[in-house]
């Protein structure tokens, strides 16, 4: 119920902004669209973060790296044609499967031995894994920017859609679609299926869960496998819109995704969905506001201008701080 209200409020705000600025070419409308499509990616990564947090109460710093690994696998198969030329969609599917295997391996090697450790230790372990993955990518592909072609280039025979002076690529539409579907599916999974309830039970009391006959190790495997799946999907879909560098999904996406997950409440899947979108909007709109209002003459203005080059990041950090101070459980979080 609460989630419906929050989603409604956000949608209404977006609609109002769009309606107010419809005639203003310098208005925020294009930025709203950018923000939404950017936010969809944050939301997709945030879904994986929330999944892991629900299951094992730890922030998974390797979530972004699942995406980069998958993107590099696609790159190897599509661009470098190794081992042979593979159609894009098949390459993406293979990459996702391989990344899930990576996630399972990580669960077995890194997470499993630390299941009963303090969460700080597990946190450090996920950081180490992320850094290991980044380092391995640097060694394998050198720290150079590469380009990955988009998966879809045309929808209904058109290659781009103009919306408020902003070109919406088909790839972005695909991201919005996939993320909506995954969020709905996960929400159903956690509220209606036995497996979903078992995952929730693990996060609350693993001993009691074991007593009633649920295998904690099996659940842990399932959680990390699914997280790797979500991360891989996000990476394969998003990296074509940006540049492929080692750690691309960690440096650019992980922090806003965390912020989105926290805004949503860290335990709520619809919350992660909405939080990701909100973070995208905040970043994009502050970018617009920074460019729109802050440019002036003189030293002070120049200094301000220099600082606000980082506006989206500053705004996202401020949003994170405000939410954590004022409402630590987030918009849609519960103590579960």
């Amino acid at each position, binding site marked *: 119920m609460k989630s419906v209200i929050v989603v409604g409020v956000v949608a209404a705000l977006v609609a109002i902004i769009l309606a107010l600025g419809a005639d203003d070419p310098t208005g925020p409308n294009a930025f709203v669209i950018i923000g939404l499509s950017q936010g969809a990616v944050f939301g997709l990564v945030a879904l994986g973060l929330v999944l892991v947090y629900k299951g094992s109460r730890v922030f998974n710093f390797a979530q972004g790296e699942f995406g980069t690994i998958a993107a590099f696998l696609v790159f190897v198969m599509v661009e470098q044609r190794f081992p042979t030329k593979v159609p894009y969609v098949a390459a993406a599917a293979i990459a996702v499967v391989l990344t899930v295997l990576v996630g399972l391996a990580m669960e077995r090697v890194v997470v499993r031995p630390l299941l009963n450790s303090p969460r700080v230790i597990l946190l450090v372990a996920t950081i180490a894994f992320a850094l290991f993955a980044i380092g391995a990518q640097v060694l394998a592909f050198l720290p150079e920017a590469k380009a990955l072609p988009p998966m879809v280039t045309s929808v209904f025979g058109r290659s781009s859609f103009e919306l408020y002076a902003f070109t919406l690529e088909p790839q972005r539409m695909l991201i919005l679609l996939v993320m909506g579907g995954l969020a709905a599916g996960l929400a159903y999974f956690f509220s209606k299926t036995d497996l979903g309830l078992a995952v929730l039970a693990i996060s609350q009391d*693993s*001993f009691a869960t074991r007593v009633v006959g649920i295998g904690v190790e099996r659940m842990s495997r399932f959680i990390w496998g699914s997280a790797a799946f979500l991360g891989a999907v996000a990476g394969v879909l998003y990296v074509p819109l940006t540049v492929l560098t080692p750690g691309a999904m960690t440096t650019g996406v992980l922090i806003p995704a965390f912020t989105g997950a926290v805004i949503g409440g860290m335990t709520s899947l619809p919350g992660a969905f909405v939080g990701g979108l909100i973070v995208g909007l905040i970043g994009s709109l502050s970018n617009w506001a920074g460019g729109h209002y802050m440019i002036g003459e003189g030293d002070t203005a120049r200094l301000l201008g220099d600082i606000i080059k980082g506006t989206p990041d500053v705004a996202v950090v401020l949003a994170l701080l405000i939410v954590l101070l004022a409402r630590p459980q987030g918009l849609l979080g519960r103590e579960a």
Partner: protein
Amino acid sequence: MTATAAETISAPAISRAPAKWRPSAQGWVFRAAVLVLIFGGIIWRTATIEQFWADRFALAAIYAVIGLSLNVVLGYVGQVSLGHHGFVGIAAFVSAYYVTEKAGCVPNECSLGAFGTGILFAVISGGVAALLLGLIALRIRGLYLALITLSYGFMAERSIFEIPFLTRGGAGMPAPRPDGFTTDRAYAFLCYFFLALVIFVDWRLLRSKVGRAVLSVKHSEPVAASYGINVTAYKTLAFVLSGLFAGLGGGLLAFHTQNVVSNDFNFAIALLWVLMVVVGGLGNRTGVVIGSAFFALFPFLLELIHPLEEAVIESGRAFGQVTIVVGAALAILTVIQFPGGIAEQLSPITRWLRGQKFALHPEGHGGKHKGHAHKKGALLAKLGLHKGDQHAVDGAPSEQQASANPPPEESAAAVADHGTPLRADNGAAGGGETAATHGAAAVAADDGTRGGDGSESAGDGDEGAAGDADDIDAVIRRRFPPVPSRTPPATGATDDEEA
């Protein structure tokens, strides 16, 4: 503190029946000789080796300063800071800005006074940055601090490091070294001096009332708070101390590279710093210094292997990139298999140097418990997060750690001089003893079994003493063990959120 709690605390001390073994005069001389050899060797090598190696040694010393800075947050307070590149970078830019723009230094013409002021500004700016962040961030519980520091560092990277008058538009801000220290070798000795200073301050502060309070906060925030310790203030204080050290590290780093570029302070390096502290050994000064120096020197050590060097250079890669992979793998291995890190591996030697018999395992630690459990226990103890059943299992991880965790009497005293004890005398009011006192006594006694020797006997004596003194006390104790351990992951989570 004359209550049952006091008796409980002193119990382990009584049960340490045999007097502590001490080496003979000859033994001390021998130990001193080894120490002199180690430190003399380092100084002699720095003085005689080629300049570019001295430069690398300077980097190792600076990394050690940064490692000690992170160790305050990670090892003493038990929180993760992922934004240290923010503190270090801000301090580096501030000191470089001061000496170049304000003091008008140019290469080979820079007074020691300007350098000193630059370093001072660096230290202050690091402290202020940490204070500002700490005031907000430390009010937030648990793992969320990691997120805040992470996004703080990211914000610094994107906004502060982009200010052109600081960074000169990406070209970098020059930071000429002071007169007399322009050579790499002289500068390395300057870095050693500052490293020694940081080690000294860290050591003295940890042994002071402040240090004991911080450690007690790490062990259990509710218990510390119940003794009148201002938890948030001490956490903020530790955070600021970490910021001051990081500022010093940043200032030194500025004069080390002599041209501060914002690219040097990125997210990956902050993660690497965290890992080097973990690999070195959380909360262990010696281990952290060795671990940091190892991470700083590792790429250069790899270079010494000539076939490898050729292969790496031919492929267009750099040794720094290899360090990240190896460092991360080492950190994973440390966390999973050797939680004590380098400090744990070196503990027989460090224990021996401190005046104990040379033994692979601490005294009073029969062969029974060596293995995974006690190693893990060591890490848990270092983080101050106990699994309830751990206190009987793990013995004394290392004497090193005994210095990190003060002996029980000390920490009890620390608690006592921080606020009014909850209960003044034991009298007949045994049953009225509050749970908080129990918790504190348990924590303190626990501390004893960790830091000292003879863990099992200490634990037993503890229990026995409590039973003799007060039956109800013992019953409560047995019924409600100090830290619930029924559900490890959930407990871990709540522990974290409270810690």
